[in-house]
């Protein structure tokens, strides 16, 4: 790996030096764009022993703003930057009964430079890994309310057993295991071949990460629109990792179909190498879009994630209304449950209603 790192770093440096010269020569015709959104909701939670309401930032699509710019870089190429940060006060995936108020923090999402052209796109910096989102492809129009990453709403709440809080949270037991998310990486994306795009990335958080993905999105005549992705990630654990731990590998994907009538189906599956077991995740959503409305029901199941033999489930119904193009109103009702041999956990219910406004 160290030799690969050296060669890769040299290649990237050479490419950026070359790019620097080109951009300097043609530093005109630059377009700079600033955009963002605010996404707030009221969330009510009942864990079987305690219930309360929360004023949250919807982590399904957090409050954030973006600054991006690009310009011609010669020979039909464009170069630019993407800078995006989020600012969440009371993130819906982090609040608990014990911690109802969490101060807003500016956290990174994207900070990268890119070069795009007939060869595809190369990105360098903080941003999506190649497989990020590959288990979250969803054409239902209700992702604001619910999607495969169910812990984004209430993920920090812990199950109760015998009235006492257990050590297992919703997020521990039913993650969609969406690969390595965002990190500092070098990413290459191929051009589109009949709707297919391949991606590969290499980078690191604490440990080195390699990801691969194949994505598709297209209209299939009278059958409507189909989108999907398959991905693979491997986080190479460092040499000082505890004995018995393994590299963190995830494989899986998702597919979503939207019929012209508005009926839609979404499915996701991932499997993750965990010490002594495979953590599995399955997700199914059926929905209907009509006019400015979208409604759906979903079912998710996590197996062996928090502990061997665990089976966590989520059932939900979500609704999104788009009265005007820059505003959406959403509602969600869902229930989480956890089955574990030798223990009995209370279900946790959520009701959430809120609005996202793009500014």
């Amino acid at each position, binding site marked *: 790996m160290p030799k690969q790192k050296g060669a890769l770093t040299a290649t990237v440096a050479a490419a950026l030096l070359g790019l620097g010269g080109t951009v300097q020569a043609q530093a005109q015709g630059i377009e700079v764009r600033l955009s963002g959104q605010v996404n707030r909701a009221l969330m009510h939670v009942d864990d079987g022993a305690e219930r309360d309401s929360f004023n949250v930032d919807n982590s399904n699509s957090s409050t954030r703003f973006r600054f991006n710019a690009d310009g011609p870089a010669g020979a039909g190429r464009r170069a630019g930057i993407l800078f995006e940060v989020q600012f969440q006060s009371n993130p819906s995936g982090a609040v608990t009964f014990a911690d109802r108020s969490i101060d807003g923090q500016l956290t990174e999402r994207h900070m990268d430079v890119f070069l795009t052209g007939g060869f595809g796109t190369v990105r360098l910096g903080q941003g999506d890994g190649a497989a990020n989102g590959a288990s979250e*492809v969803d054409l239902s129009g209700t992702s604001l309310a619910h999607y495969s990453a169910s812990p984004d709403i209430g993920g920090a709440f812990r199950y109760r057993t015998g009235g006492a809080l257990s050590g297992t949270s919703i997020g521990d037991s039913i993650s969609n295991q969406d690969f390595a998310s965002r990190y500092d990486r070098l990413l290459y994306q191929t051009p589109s071949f009949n709707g297919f795009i391949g991606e590969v990335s290499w980078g690191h958080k604490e440990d080195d990460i390699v990801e691969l993905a194949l994505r598709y999105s297209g209209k299939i005549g009278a059958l409507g629109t189909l989108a999907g992705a398959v991905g693979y990630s491997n986080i190479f654990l460092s040499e000082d990792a505890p004995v018995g731990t393994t590299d963190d590998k995830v494989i899986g994907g998702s597919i979503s179909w939207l019929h012209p009538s508005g009926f839609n189906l979404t499915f996701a599956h991932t499997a993750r190498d965990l010490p002594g077991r495979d953590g599995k995740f399955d997700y199914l959503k059926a929905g209907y879009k009509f006019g400015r409305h979208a409604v759906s029901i979903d079912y998710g199941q996590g197996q062996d994630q928090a502990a061997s033999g665990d089976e966590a489930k989520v059932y939900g119904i979500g609704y999104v209304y788009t009265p005007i193009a820059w505003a959406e109103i959403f509602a969600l009702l869902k229930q989480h449950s956890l089955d574990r041999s030798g223990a009995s956990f209370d279900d946790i219910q959520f009701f959430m209603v809120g609005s996202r406004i793009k500014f």
Partner: protein
Amino acid sequence: MRAALLMICSVLAGCAAEPVPYHSQNEISRGPGLLTGAEGAFVFRTGDAAPRESAAPRNAEEEREYQEWRDSKRRQESESSAK
């Protein structure tokens, strides 16, 4: 599983499917904005930069939303000018 995946990919690549960009609803939408209007962003252009396709809606639904928003805006403007 792999065979099924390969078959699906081959069929999609070989048939007359029309590629369309996928845009996650969990990201900032590509439509208009409350303050930024039809562009959906505060845009600064230097030199000979022309408005780019990226400012426009990318799929049928966003196109419909954009047209509805534009029509309502025109109605509001014509109503206010009539007064």
